């Protein structure tokens, strides 16, 4: 733990540096979203199937869409400075509340998917590297290529057809048994049943990436001198593979996983849609369709915060994996 003070300094510096970055991202997002034609008032009025000019004008005035763009940006930043993400015109609810409602679902799906992907991917990669060029390697290579190329909505639907429709083992969608009123262990088990299929569908793609990455890195590390030394000093092949080869091979895997983690926050739209999973990805997607920019800006802000935080965490993790890497 001699690194602790240095880690703290690094965290503080990252936090400070991230402020201008985040403000820049917010402003950029704000203007990018303006490029989409129409605003939330247009959509609300349009969805109503009929509208009058008064309705539309009232809606626009209420949400401030009739103000100059810069003034709208000013208001948004002012609210943000007071830790308010604003109100969603569509849901008539504070954006922070909307996001907070969905965040636990997204985090559990993300965690389950990425955890599964990392464990399986690294294990498969290690197996492939150990049997490089032989039958197990070739079979797994084909399999990972398949996982990599199958679109997640298709695999999602196929899993639903098999496990929910044909076998009836698992529910076809949703996040819990609605209105069942479970608590404690029963509730966890119930939620887990709903989590299995979406997490698996989401994970497959990443399993393939991590397996390929681990395999390639392990083969490269294997050829290095320190591995020959380890073998020469009489360590068992398993100990060499895990402690000396795999550990070094994990550096790029963790880097990739960090990038994916941030991406998954809003990027699981497809899987969330197929499984009616009440997560942030779908909230973001619906916000785009409804031109609910406050919600979208909130989610983007959260994503960018997460990217910054995860990058910092990955730096620290890598320093722990490889002492030659230093936390600055």
């Amino acid at each position, binding site marked *: 733990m001699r690194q602790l003070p240095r880690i703290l300094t690094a965290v503080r510096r990252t936090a400070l540096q991230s402020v201008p970055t985040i403000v820049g991202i917010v402003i950029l997002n704000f203007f990018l979203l303006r490029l*989409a*034609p*129409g*605003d939330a008032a*247009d*959509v*609300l*009025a*349009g*969805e*109503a*199937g*009929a*509208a*009058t*000019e*008064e*309705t*539309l004008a*009232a809606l626009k005035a*209420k949400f401030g869409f009739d103000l100059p763009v810069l003034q709208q940006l000013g208001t948004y930043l002012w609210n943000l400075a007071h830790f308010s993400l604003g109100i969603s015109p*569509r*849901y*008539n*609810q504070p954006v922070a509340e*909307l996001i907070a*409602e*969905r965040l636990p*679902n997204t985090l559990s799906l993300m965690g389950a998917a990425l955890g599964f992907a990392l464990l399986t991917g690294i294990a498969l990669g290690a197996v492939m590297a150990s049997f490089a060029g032989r039958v197990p390697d070739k079979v797994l290579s084909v399999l990972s290529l398949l996982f990599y190329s199958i679109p997640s*909505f298709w695999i999602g*639907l196929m899993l*639903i*057809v098999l496990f*929910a*429709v044909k076998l*009836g083992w698992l*529910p*076809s*969608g*949703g*996040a*819990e048994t*609605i*209105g069942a009123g479970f608590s404690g262990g029963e509730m966890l088990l119930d939620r887990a049943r709903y989590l299995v299929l979406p997490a698996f569908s989401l994970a497959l793609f990443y399993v393939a990436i991590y397996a390929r990455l681990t395999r390639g890195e392990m083969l490269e590390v294997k050829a290095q001198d320190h591995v020959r030394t380890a073998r020469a000093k009489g360590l068992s092949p398993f100990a060499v593979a895990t402690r000396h080869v795999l550990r070094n091979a994990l550096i790029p895997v963790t880097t990739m996983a960090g990038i994916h983690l941030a991406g998954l926050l809003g990027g699981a739209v497809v899987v969330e*849609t*197929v*499984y*009616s999973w*009440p*997560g942030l990805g*779908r*909230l973001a997607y*619906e916000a785009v*369709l*409804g*031109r609910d920019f406050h919600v979208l800006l909130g989610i983007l802000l959260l994503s960018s915060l997460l990217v910054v935080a995860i990058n910092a965490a990955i730096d620290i993790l890598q320093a722990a994996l490889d002492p030659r890497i230093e936390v600055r």
Partner: protein
Amino acid sequence: MPLPPAPASSAKSLTFRGEIHRRTVLAGAAALFLGGGGAFAPAWAKDEAEGAGSAPVKGGVLRFLVEHEPSTLVTIAHTAGPTQRISPKVTEGLLTYDLNFNPQPALATRWDVSADGLTYTFKLREGVKWHDGQPFTAADVAYSLDLLKKIHPRGRGTFASVTAVETPDDHTVIIRLSKPATYLLTALDANESPIVAKHIYEGTDPLTNKNGSAPIGTGPFLFREWVRGSHIILERNPDYWDAGKPYLDRVVVRFIADQSARSAAFEAGELDLAGGPPVPYADLARVSALPGLGAETRGYDYAGRMTQLYFNFERPQLQDRRVRLAIAQAIDLQKLLDVVYFGYGKVAASVISPNLKAFVDPSLEPYGYDLKAANALLDEAGYPRKADGTRFALRLYANPFNTQAAGDFVKQSLAKVGIPVDFQFFDFATYIQKTYTSRDFDITLESLQNLFDPTLGVQRTLWSRNFRIGLPFSNASHYSNPEVDRLLEAAAIERDPQARRQLWFDFQKLVHDDVAAVGLLAPDGVTIFNRKVKNHTIGVTGVDASFADVYIEA
């Protein structure tokens, strides 16, 4: 004729008078809405029509699918489809309508229209309580009508001529109009004109009132919870005014955005009922043939679905009637119906939906699919084919409520007569902006509901005074015809049903002859239901009804 604020002794004669008038009104309506849904429903829907055979069963949970999550649960200020599905279960209206548009009592038990059509008197049901225990009175109705006129997207039009709402006693409401509005009596359903509690809305901004996300109404179901992105739970109201109803213990509303996932959920037996169609037309036959499931096409007439073609009259080519007629004749409507809509719907001959039987002119015929005539018309109009075989290009947009395939079909049809079409398919918000604000379309494939009355549903797109840039579903064509305007304005205030019908016939004839717009077809709504679920379709609003009568057979 206004009812006098009743002394108890005159109650009997009052009832008598009210009944007479109501019967006249009903007879008129019945004569108008000839036929009705039943006769036109496909044979396989018929055996499911009546749950009459068996006695209703109490209890059970209905798993009801609403495709997309609504943004609010009360239709007082917002009329999007998902909101209309859920709102009437909790928040009721003054009337409901059977499958032939005949008004039925709901919160109003009797109603009376004065001879000059300017005074509507409603007797309200007594002993009704809001879900929070407060009594329901005439003040709530007056307040709601006022809100509807002020903030409801369509209410501003429907109730425009309302000058005063009087409440002589707690159970009488008198609406006074400046000019007759016959459509008023069909506009009082829960999903169109909900009655909300005055004590909840008073003194607040109705658009942000929390009642929108946790409604308190008088309806058969109490709102219990709304988990955003997942579901809504409604519980049986034990104190409902219609004693013994509702039969269901609970309605669980689920939202499933993905069409294939909806099919899968039906197949896995996780859903009991859904309107829409909830699954793609291509999947309908398969899903509705699953064991235990059925399909129903009735219960969508209140919305009056239509798919239409509108022209931009600011384009020189399209100002020529021959060009518009050629475009209409180049589209094979039957094939469009069969290929794109899998036969679910009816070919339309007029801009008024064939399902709106009180108003559609049955003598009109579609323009007919005739490529030869279309080519000849275009030649005659001065647009001969150029060396590359084309005449002039047009830009086509399509409301995303139509499928993209419908736009592709029109594109391919017009290519055959030498009109290359640049078809652009956008998401809803972009479509609204590009069609109604920047108006950079030449032709657009719209999906505009006729609603229950053409004054509300049809007038908006062809009335020259409704050419308002930036207003969704206005007269974006910029069609302007003084005679059409005159007929529309006359029909809006005509009291006599026959005379009004004739005005609408004249209007349709004129629009048809002028090819002002082309009503292509009226797509069917389709309800998918578990065969154990009974009474899901008992009125023109179908699954948008209150569900007080729905029960699940053991």
